[in-house]
């Protein structure tokens, strides 16, 4: 198994297409950081427009933690496409090249081969998120410094102490890894039905867009299915940045307002990931390889 995973990773990282995702993430983060560094004040004025008359804000609001949060809100919507580029190609790409048949005549079971490919896809996903974390979090910390984190939510504001932020990012990136693994599992599942990569990549994104629309639609009839859609829970990482307050309305350092929501969202995502993988396995084990 280990050597199979090694071979799969070797193939992924020898392929130029793989680096599109890393390049795209670096370019987007670089542009956002550049823009905020140059004109961060205007961005803040716009963001705090309604509050400037009622709040007096001290300190360095536009710090690395806030910049990273802003970027994650923007990027975690688009990262699934970059993950689909590789995950949805894992089987269909091999079928397209004709190499799938060569892999399947080697002395491994189809289950072992599929598991190795899936592990490799997850490793790629995690590496992309680590890359994102290095650039978005550590890069922004270097460029903008650190301070308390001020977040403007829809109907309230959150103020997190500087010392209470970093662990929340570890949690948020960990949760994002779960969400992106689900995306990888979906792409992997769709990959088994096709003999070229384009179809599964487009199909993966279509499913995500379709489910996201269903998740955000405020039509009562859809409320029944919303809790079961993985897209409803993909933004669960934001829960790490909501803090509990005590009776005197003071923030409790190190707390999360709704940890049950994070656990529930994680379980839904893990269930989807397992479900997609088992479905892939069931289809792939019986599939006649004609490519």
């Amino acid at each position, binding site marked *: 198994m280990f050597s199979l995973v090694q071979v799969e990773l070797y193939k992924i990282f020898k392929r130029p297409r793989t680096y599109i995702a890393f390049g795209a993430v670096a370019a987007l983060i670089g542009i956002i950081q550049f823009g905020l560094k140059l004109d961060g004040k205007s961005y803040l004025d716009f963001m705090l427009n309604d509050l400037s008359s009622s709040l007096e804000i001290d300190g360095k609001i536009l710090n690395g933690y806030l910049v990273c949060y802003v970027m994650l809100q923007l990027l975690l919507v688009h990262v699934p496409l970059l993950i689909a580029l590789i995950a949805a190609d894992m089987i269909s790409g091999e079928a397209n090249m004709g190499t799938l048949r*060569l892999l399947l005549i080697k002395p491994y079971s189809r289950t072992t081969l599929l598991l190795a490919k899936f592990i490799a896809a997850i490793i790629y996903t995690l590496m992309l998120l680590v890359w994102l974390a290095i650039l978005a979090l550590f890069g922004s910390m270097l460029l903008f410094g650190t301070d308390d984190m001020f977040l403007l939510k829809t109907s309230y504001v959150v103020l997190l102490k500087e010392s209470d932020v970093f662990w929340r990012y570890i949690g948020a990136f960990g949760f994002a890894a779960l969400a992106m693994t689900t995306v990888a599992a979906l792409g992997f599942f769709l990959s088994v039905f096709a003999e070229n990569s384009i179809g599964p990549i487009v199909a993966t994104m279509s499913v995500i867009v379709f489910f996201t629309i269903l998740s955000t639609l405020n039509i009562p009839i859809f409320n029944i299915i919303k809790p079961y859609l993985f897209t409803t829970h993909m933004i669960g990482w934001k829960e790490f940045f909501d803090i509990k307050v005590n009776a005197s309305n003071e923030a409790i350092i190190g707390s999360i307002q709704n940890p049950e929501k994070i656990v529930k969202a994680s379980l839904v995502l893990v269930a989807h990931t397992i479900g997609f993988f088992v479905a892939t396995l069931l289809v792939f084990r019986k599939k006649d390889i004609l490519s």
Partner: protein
Amino acid sequence: MSSVIQVQGLTKKFGHQFTAVNDLSFSVNKGDVYGFLGQNGAGKSTTIRMLLSLITPTSGSIEIFGMPLQANRAAIMQNVGAVIEKPAMYEYLTAYQNLKIFSALSGVSKTRLQLLHELDVVGLAARAHDLVRTFSQGMKQRLAIAMAMVNDPQLILLDEPTNGLDPQGIADIRNLILQLSRVQGKTVLVSSHLLSEIEQVATRLIIIDKGCKLVEGDSKDLFDKSKTVVAIQTLNNIEATKQLMQTNWASHVLIDRSSDKEICMQLDEKLLPTLHKNLVEMGIGVLSVKPMHSLEDYFLRITSTPSYV
């Protein structure tokens, strides 16, 4: 002689409409170069894919090295190498990297020098570190063979290995098959539509058509000049057959293959002048007497496709 491949009643249906392979049975003995012949769409590739467990049979059994394939797939595949139709490999990698990957996948640990030597054997040492996408079809085919041989298999399945090759490439493949069989003692199953190529290398062969076996046997029997099959066309083939059945030639007439279009007989090639003379003496209006010397003639006759090849 022990059977390396034993196939019994193999059938593959795609959906309810199309039967690609129909109740096919054959055996390949150790050391054979087994020719697998048939028109395009006859079921050769489907059969080879079933032998490699890429396609699940609808019914029938496959034993390789004396073990049922489904239950012993991993153990069997340790000793099998294959080139399936057009050569497939990772075009964004070099020849050396491709070989290294398939060496690892076969569970074989080979040094850099060993891998380079194997590329040298197929004439690719000088291009070992070039991307495969820059290779010609013939070079890709040679690399595909090196990849199939990397685990030193005892059984080699080659599906249309000469497709897209120039005459030199075809000759190279032919020599390679002969070397694998005669020098290294490997068992080779080779399918091809280039029948003259099979004729030169096969020790045994099978001809299939529409998924069914038409004939299986030793090449030397099929090409035995003392058992030459002769196709005779006369002015009235049915009447001529009746006349022949009343003479000493009756035992040579292949009734099941004769029709109103031709009379088929099997006899020693040396008897042809006598046969011709007797036919004239019997007053039979002979239009042609054509001995089928080559496998290609034989193949064309029994698959009834004169336009083929």
